[in-house]
């Protein structure tokens, strides 16, 4: 079983977590065309390299972000949404 390190709860077995999928940009409904909105709805980053995803620690219902290689399954880092905003 893989280990995932929750920023709040520390390293835990990955079956304590639920993946909420790759992060999507939040387009502005006012300025986005129907076609682009449909793309926003249905398209998900499925690249084989490093993807940034939302994860949830289920027992604590805590959400955070993880950078994970979608081919090797290596977790590069986990961090909070606040940390993400703090990044340059």
């Amino acid at each position: 079983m893989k280990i995932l390190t929750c920023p709040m709860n520390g390293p835990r077995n990955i079956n304590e977590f639920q993946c909420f999928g790759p992060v999507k940009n939040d387009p502005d409904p006012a300025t986005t065309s129907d076609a682009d909105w449909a793309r926003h709805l249905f398209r998900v980053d499925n690249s084989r390299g490093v993807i940034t995803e939302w994860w949830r620690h289920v027992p604590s219902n805590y959400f955070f972000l993880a950078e994970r290689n979608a081919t090797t399954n290596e977790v590069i880092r986990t961090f909070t949404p606040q940390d993400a905003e703090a990044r340059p």
Partner: protein
Amino acid sequence: MPLRLLKYAFSRDYPVTGDIPATPDLKSSYDVVIIGGGGHGLACAHYLSKYHGITNVAVLEKGYLAGGNTARNTTTIRSNYITKEGIAFYKEGVQLYEEMSQELDFNVMFSQRGQLTLAHTEATLRSFHLRAEMGKHAGTNIEVVDAQTVKDLSPHLNMDEGGPLEIMGGLWHADGGTARHDAVAWGYAAQAARRGVEIHQRTEVEGFETDQGRITKVRTNRGDIAAGQVMIAVGGMNYDMAMRAGVELPIRCYPLQAMVTQPLKPWLHTLVSSVSLHTYLVQSSRGEIVIGGGSDPYQLCSTRSTLDMKEHLSEGATHLFPFLQGVRLLRQWAGITDMTPDYSPIMGASPLKNLWLDCGWGTWGFKATPVAGKYMAQTIANGRVAPILEPFTMERFARFELLNEMGATAASH
């Protein structure tokens, strides 16, 4: 004893049929380049060469023939879907399987022993009724059966009477069955090769050159090829391959795991699957119990297996058949599934004029091998999407015309 066996017995040397020719040199140009030497690509090559007279065809396979999901799936063939578009398509798929051994002169061992899907809740039973009504209306062999009939069809089932997983009924699909997956691919390959189709193993497509909305060149690790028409059918690699041509598909990849026990004398005669337990079982012609279930819970392009999934599938299997506790597991494995938002495939045209898609098969492409091959070949030969494939266009998402088959996939495939 079948007469053909005598041919072997009375030949001094082993009589070679030569199913799959050795990989030839790449030509500079083909009428059709099929990317992906799995069941779908090879079936398309067969139909192109036999029924459309198109034989200047190259099938490009980056590894060995049919080594991807064709080799890794659990070979279920069925048409018990819920959308009328899906049922029409898979119904013909089942019919083509019924004729396949004769069509290919290769025994694909289509074993039509029926599929029994179990309902442990009223909600499941309700969805089974809908699948049965849709299927009956389309003329497939399907019905909802009560608990007693379930017991008659699979006498060893734990009915869990009075328990939380009491079997309330089932969906009986007498048309369902299995086939020998490798044989399907090899049979198509041998037929296509006999008509002049070139099969290139260890040939990886690295990229494309496009001009004015057409693919002009296919770049491979063995050189560039010009192509009249190009089809993508690369299973777990579909998203990446389409991206190399600049086409963005709404696909996410998840591993799908399965496992198999040691061979046992036959005792399980139908396919049995449980929606609530996310588990299905079938006994192969070798006597092994093949056990499969739901996908992994997060995106991954890897065929690694996990202990958790094995534990989960064992829980399901031993719940349905408690006496399986003592049966020994031999092997577990995984394939990479290319899932779409509505669990239905994406077939037909792409934004590039000569690029055709046979993608998004997710957990259930094997059963569509002949029918997808047939109609993709027709589409490529005519330069126009076959009507039966039209609903499966990649444009359906933006139109909110989804073909939702979530309930009919998952554990019950």
